[in-house]
């Protein structure tokens, strides 16, 4: 997914002279082809995220569309004020490509786990937050990003993720994609958790429970229209995200459903209010934090009282 997104920056740079790439201190050889073809639009600026965001803002004020890449935690925690003021207050079209969304960097420990990135960025006016499900959807995200007039956070998964998105569904920022149908329950998921949501829906179907899956690739702006349309026709809602259960997708769904006055049960699956412990692989941490198809299935059953209608 990261390779795809960076390759797409190069593609977009070929298409549009406004496109720039800014990295911090990325791996040797990152985007070497783009650096060769467009040396004036390739920047590697060192471990100074606050400066990089300000620099990107200055460039965007003069008409450029900077794509910035580094590790998600450094791109959010370290330079939050620059993201808030330089990018969001000025409402500039800069793109933050965040490597290692969620628990990807499990073996590297909690300094590298982007568990609250969605929550803190969701609090910023003008920010757009997108978490694609696979590399093919990433291509579509990047294409859509070119002319989006606002700052945008693109959350990357580990890479090599199974492809479940479909070209015919297209991609539009802020327009959720329904990937499974069913009126017993609605599972709302984002990022690669959609793959697990689909797996849970298949498992539930085998037991006669029809669960819809709504892939909320854009967490902000939330597709309230799609959510409320499906929510009003279902018995209960379960949200799934590789992120704190508080402040992210689940909270956004709760707010939307509550604001609309819909009396539906909403159960949220996500990380608890602790820094995840244990290293190991991403899969290990996903399992130990209950971000699994089995847990989604069980939560759906709990939410609907255990029975199909």
């Amino acid at each position, binding site marked *: 997914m990261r390779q795809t997104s960076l390759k797409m920056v190069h593609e977009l740079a070929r298409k549009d002279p406004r496109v720039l790439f800014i990295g911090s201190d990325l791996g040797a050889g990152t985007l070497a082809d783009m650096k060769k073809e467009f040396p004036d639009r390739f920047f590697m*600026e060192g471990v100074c995220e606050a*400066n990089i965001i300000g620099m990107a803002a200055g460039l965007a004020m003069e008409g450029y569309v900077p794509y910035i890449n580094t590790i998600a935690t450094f791109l959010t925690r370290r330079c939050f*004020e620059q993201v808030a003021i330089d990018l969001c207050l000025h409402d500039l079209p800069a793109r933050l490509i965040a490597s290692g969304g969620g628990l990807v960097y499990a073996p590297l420990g909690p300094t590298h786990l982007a568990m609250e990135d969605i929550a803190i960025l969701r609090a910023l006016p003008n920010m757009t937050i997108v978490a694609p499900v696979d590399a093919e959807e990433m291509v579509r995200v990047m294409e859509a990003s070119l002319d989006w007039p606002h700052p945008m956070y693109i959350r990357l998964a580990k890479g090599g993720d199974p492809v479940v998105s479909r070209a015919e569904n297209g991609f539009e920022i802020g327009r959720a994609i329904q990937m499974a149908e069913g009126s017993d329950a609605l599972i709302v998921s984002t990022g690669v958790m959609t793959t697990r949501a689909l797996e849970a829906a298949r498992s539930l179907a085998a037991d006669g429970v029809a669960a819809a899956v709504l892939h909320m690739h854009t967490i902000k702006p939330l597709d309230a229209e799609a959510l409320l349309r499906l929510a009003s026709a279902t018995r209960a809602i379960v949200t799934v995200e590789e992120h704190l259960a508080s402040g992210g997708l689940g909270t956004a769904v709760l707010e939307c459903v509550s604001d609309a006055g819909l009396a539906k049960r909403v159960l949220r699956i996500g990380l608890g209010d602790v820094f995840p412990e244990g290293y190991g692989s991403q899969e290990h941490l996903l399992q130990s934090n209950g971000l699994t198809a089995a847990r989604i299935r069980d939560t759906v059953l709990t939410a609907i009282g255990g029975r199909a209608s």
Partner: protein
Amino acid sequence: MNTNGPEGTPLDERSIYLRSLVIDSLEGGGRGHVGSTLSLIEIIRVLYDDVLRVRPQEPTWPDRDRFILSKGHGCLALYALLADKGFFPLSELREQCKAGAMLGGHPERGHTPGVEASTGALGHGLSIGLGMALAARMQGRNSRVFVAMGDGELDEGSVWEGAMCAAKHGLSNLTAIVDYNKLQSYGLKRDVLNIEPLTDKWAAFGFEVRECDGHAIGALREALRPSTSGKPVVVICHTLKGKGLSFAEQNPSWHHKAKIGVEDVARMRGALETQA
């Protein structure tokens, strides 16, 4: 440099007039950063009178020079010059900070004509400015970019990230300006967080370093000339916080006033008259 230092530099008629505009804002809004504004007046005056190529009737003219007031709390000095140059009517000055006003307690891009960046949180302007300077170079424009910072602002690490980055890119079209009044909000700069040796620091970070009396018009004009070294320039302006109002000079309690009453205004106007 004036051998008496910035405290001895006399103010001419125009500097006194610009200060009277600042007092108009303080009176109208009933609040403002007094000391931090008054140390900046001559710096911004020389920029707008003698250096910047701008079009007040066309504030977003693409080929203009850019000026970012990174120490946004000194905005009353910027507003005085922008109004004086005709970016907006002088009558707006008295409205500062009022509900629905064009002028806020810190500068806002897109809200006030002539303001290039929204500032107020310190340590942002240099990085934004170097992005603008890079853009000018890439777009083949000969625009210069100026970023004015306070000495307290130099406490922020991001300033030094930006300094390294500007030097790396050889941004000779970028000029950093330090309003070095040696007094931050709490007290003396050297006591709160010493920034010396300041000229050596900027030189070590790859800048062409100039120093001048920040209230001496001729010295400022000379110091703000283009880079001669191919490096970005920093002009360290030795200034006096509260310059022009004897009771506010180097007085930390005049850094910011949240409430300015009739008596304060009379006192300020009186102090200004003694200089005329």
